[in-house]
């Protein structure tokens, strides 16, 4: 289907880093099943390096591809680099997403940030909360008033 780039289809068909990490150091879940997309990211962090990352996603093709790409982009990287990951970087690495699917890359960025925030909290580390969006109840993918139904 020509809706998506080949990169997107590759990551959708063969997603990298799918699964769970039982003893994860940080877990982040964003999105809302009512909206049609939920992403969950698990991080294993040693000496400030993301040594392992896994994801689970409920969502469309670009949601699965965005999670897969985002995990690839942060795996083996220092926490500070993961913190700097943007949705734009995820979308670009996928050779672009259709306009109405850009929210999927936003969710991927937020899922990783949520997992990092969880890591900071669990380890009692000080961090700047303003760097983290409040994505407990995302409103990216559908009209927020409908999500409450």
């Amino acid at each position: 289907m020509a809706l998506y780039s080949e990169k997107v289809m590759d990551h959708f068909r063969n997603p990298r880093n799918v699964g769970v990490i039982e003893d994860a150091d940080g877990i982040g879940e964003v999105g809302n099943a009512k909206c049609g997309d939920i992403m969950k990211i698990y991080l294993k962090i040693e000496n400030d390096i993301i040594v392992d990352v896994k994801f689970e996603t409920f969502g469309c093709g670009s949601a699965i591809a965005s999670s897969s790409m985002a995990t690839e982009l942060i795996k083996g990287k220092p926490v500070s680099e993961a913190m700097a990951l943007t949705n734009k970087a995820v979308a670009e690495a996928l050779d672009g997403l259709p306009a109405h699917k850009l929210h999927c890359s936003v969710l991927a960025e937020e899922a990783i940030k949520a997992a990092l925030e969880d890591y900071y909290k669990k380890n009692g580390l000080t961090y700047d909360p303003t760097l983290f969006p409040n994505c407990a109840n995302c409103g990216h993918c559908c009209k927020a008033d409908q999500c409450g139904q």
Partner: protein
Amino acid sequence: MTIYADNAATTKMSRTAIEAMLPYMDKIYGNPSSLHSVGQKANEALTAAREQVAACLGCDARGITFTSGGSEADNQAILSAARLGQRKGKKHIISTAFEHHAVLHTLNRLEKQGFEITLLDVHENGLITPEQVADAICPDTCLVTVMYANNEIGTIQPIREIGAVCREKGVIFHTDAVQAVGHLHINIREENIDMLSLSAHKFHGPKGVGVLYARKGIPLTNLIEGGAQERGKRAGTENIPAIMGMAAALQEACGKIDSTSAQISALRDKLIAGLSEIPHSVLNGDAVRRLPSNVNFCFEGIEGESLLLLLDDKGVYASSGSACTSGSLDPSHVLLAIGRPHEIAHGSLRLSLSEETTREEVDYMIDAVKDVVSYLRSISPVWRDLVNGKSNFVIQ
């Protein structure tokens, strides 16, 4: 193997339809409004096609207006009845919450112009009752429009009974029969239908051509002004090849409804039985009062688009919700209308069969859907929470 299971979106043209069109492209290509022989030949063909269509539908040929398809017919039917009502000071229209957007968006427009629109609730089985219609009709009601069969979940409404209610109360009754014509026996006269829309590409005819039927005494409002074609109600040189293809396709389809519907509904039921084996799945729409070709399921814990993409990889061409809504991120208004919660409505699949569908294809589709659903559940955090008891199943 590739399997086309999206016949509710559109169908492959039949040989009969293609061959009926060809002479009107390079042999009898005259303009039916021209006085010379080749024009008059085209005009005769147009008349014959009109009569053929009327005979298939059980109506007067003078009530047939050829349009560019189902959407145009729906728009013109509703706007015409609304204008007629307005002239009498009646500005109330009754419809259902799960109509096609060609109807719903037209009603939205009228609402902005001061009409009052009542959208009847659809029962969980995808049906409305004639009593609901009777109860909603008031002295101001100028139109009831209820689709014959739903495009997503295939449920067939009690049209004859709704028509009878409208006739008794003197209210115009329109039905969007785009999904039904050519697949179900329809008789406009016997079923108390005042106006009806159909579209050729849903019964193996060409795309971009359809019919609006309106009984005598219902003047149409033009959507397109210009020449005097179609009794002045729809300007523009007639698309003769398409009209000829449509008439031939309709005659062919109507001539074999009994055999094809028996054949296709047996495959439908086999497919429904197979997919019902998937845990936490549910058939959308009544199992009996549904189109022979329609199968529509929700699968808990997964999302529909990824299901479709992976089925495409396996050669199964399906759809989720209606083709028109892909590109929109909101779940199907039809599934919401029958009470499926948002999170379930996202995980829907429509497989729509044709007489070309085989038993082997049905077996293949059952296996393919089972595989893809279980794979997508294996990577879904929603499914994990359901299985671990952290959240409750909506579909038991």
